[in-house]
């Protein structure tokens, strides 16, 4: 199973290495980890996708909570969250294949962001499955390079995860 954790941390140098270090040290697997500053510049949000069972997720949550720089952790329910990942895919393209690739790109509502004589670079955002599906289709043309951000996620509706409600989740 994959679980998505939304983690608020203090925006200090070194926090990322503490979090990442904790994962390797305790033998947890991270699928992806995306970080960025929030509406409050003193706080960053990490979206962490972990692979494991309930025990692993509980341990990850508890161990993360022990880090002084970690303010809040919430396990997101995929049904109640919007999850997105951004990918840039550079694919081989020549005069014969170019229009096919453009068509596929349109079907996926992705964008072509760079063109050269031999390649097209496609930008796509969406959930993991959508990105996987596009990559799968583009494989036949020869993929040169893929760059992905890892998942970010936010709860649907008016719910928010903020610093002030820090007791709620433990």
């Amino acid at each position, binding site marked *: 199973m994959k679980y998505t954790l939304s983690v608020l941390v203090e925006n200090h140098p070194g926090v990322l290495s503490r979090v990442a270090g904790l994962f390797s040290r305790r033998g947890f697997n991270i699928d992806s980890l995306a970080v960025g500053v929030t509406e409050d510049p003193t706080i960053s949000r990490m979206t962490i996708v972990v692979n494991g069972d309930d025990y692993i997720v509980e*341990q990850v949550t508890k161990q993360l*909570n022990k880090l*002084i720089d970690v303010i809040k952790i919430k396990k997101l329910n995929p049904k109640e969250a919007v999850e997105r990942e951004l990918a840039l895919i550079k694919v081989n393209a020549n005069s014969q294949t170019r229009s096919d690739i453009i068509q596929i790109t349109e079907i996926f509502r992705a964008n072509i962001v760079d063109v050269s004589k031999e390649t097209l670079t496609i930008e796509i955002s969406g959930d993991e499955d959508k990105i996987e599906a596009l990559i799968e289709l583009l494989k036949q043309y020869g993929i040169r390079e893929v760059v992905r951000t890892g998942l970010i996620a936010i709860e649907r509706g008016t719910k928010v995860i903020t610093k002030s409600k*820090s007791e709620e989740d433990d």
Partner: protein
Amino acid sequence: MKRKMTVARAMVEVLKSEGVEIIFGIPGAAIYPFYDALYSSDIKHVLVRTEQAAAHEASGYARTTGKVGVCVATSGPGATNLITGIATAYMDSVPIVAITGQVNSSLIGKDVFQEVDITGATAPFTKHNYLVKDPKKIVKVLKEAFYIASTGRRGPVLIDVPIDVQMQEIEFELPKEIDIPGYKPKERGHPLQIKRAVEAIENSQRPVICSGGGVIASKASEELKTLVEKQKIPVISTLMGIGSIPTDHPYYLGMIGSHGQKEANIALRQADLLIVIGARLADRALGDTKITENMKIIHIDIDPAEIGKNVDTNIPIVGDAKQVLSEINKRISERKDFWAQEIKAQKKEIKEDGNLHPYDVLKEISRAYNGDYIITTDVGQHQIWAAHNVYIKEPGTFITSGGLGTMGYGVPAAIGAKFGRPDKEVISITGDGSFQMLLQELATIKREQVPIKIVLFNNTRLGMVYELQKKRCTGRFIATCLDGNPDFMILAKAYGIESLRLESKEKLKEAIEIMKNHNGPFLLEVVTSPDEPTIP
């Protein structure tokens, strides 16, 4: 009121405001401004002979006083020498603050002379650590460090301060309160869980309490005793939990685990309810987690991450042991029978023979002092001998490296303990291997005239490993014979420390009397057979 001063001065001011009376350390170029500021304060500084000892001494001090122990080192090698001591404190949840100097902040990351990334290195085994680059932050950081070290599940915090930062001027003002958004330790147990726990205890046939170091740290011994006596529950302890209840208490069965007492392990196997209080239940305590599969488990711990980590828990209670136990005691009924009566009665007495055994010595020490001492141990057979045979009357008077199992801990911890509790006799029980890991601290003992007693079991072996090789490697002994040991009597003399060698049982009582009556530091070497087993 704001005052202008250097960061180094401000550091000393914060230490004073935290009630720090003593610091253990060794200076160096990267920490000299701090030492210079210390010169004109009345905080005592103990010059140790290696930084690892500074951390252990701070730890011994913290464990006997309940206060935060402080140790200091310079950058690079000074800081790395602290590491084993910091990790030891982390595993045993001992509150210490370690202050290290760092190279000039403009040079950080350039591999200059005596630079090391000590915050990176210690991240896995500090509760938190800081590299202070902004002079304005020093006061807040130090205050936070003391707060973090001494609250919740306690532990070491390290603060690394570049030398140029130490020399800068700031406006000094103590913060009114500390607010760390990500750190809000929970002291009170959840009322519903407490209610469930009470029911579970009352409905159990064969409850057992496993008491850990957390009971001692939270000063919950009285509450533990009340619960035990009301419900007549046998108590077994981890190595860290020894002393959480007096070892001669009628319901105390001993230490559990691979090196534990038989009675304690039998009781654990027969239990239908296990109440774990302030213990991790690591592999060495439990051996096999399967034995807990068919019992109910209540787990009380201040650190939520401990609950459910090593064993599945039915009733988790996050909170301070003292708080939680007193809530349970308010609600719990009285029980009549002590189910573990028979197990306790089976306790076998060791047969007397004419030879001098370690347990004879430890029992004689217990008798002569009647528990009025603080015992520290090192790591090895002697540690287990002590755990089984020394009478421990009060919580916090048995000090050992239970988590990391650090050889070399005992003597420095005893020095720290004696500084913390000068009114108490402090006896360090050590082995010839462990003793030689930090024996340079004899110089600290000499210089400061620290009147501790060292009982050195000399079996010319790394006994614990030698015993393992005997059993598991069918006697293929490698690297466990300590040929080349010094003459410990001459060694003690070199440091101006009185000593005595004990070789026969007839001299036992007399030797202990001599040690007891000696005013000042004393080394008692006990000549021990290499084949003495850990558990007779």
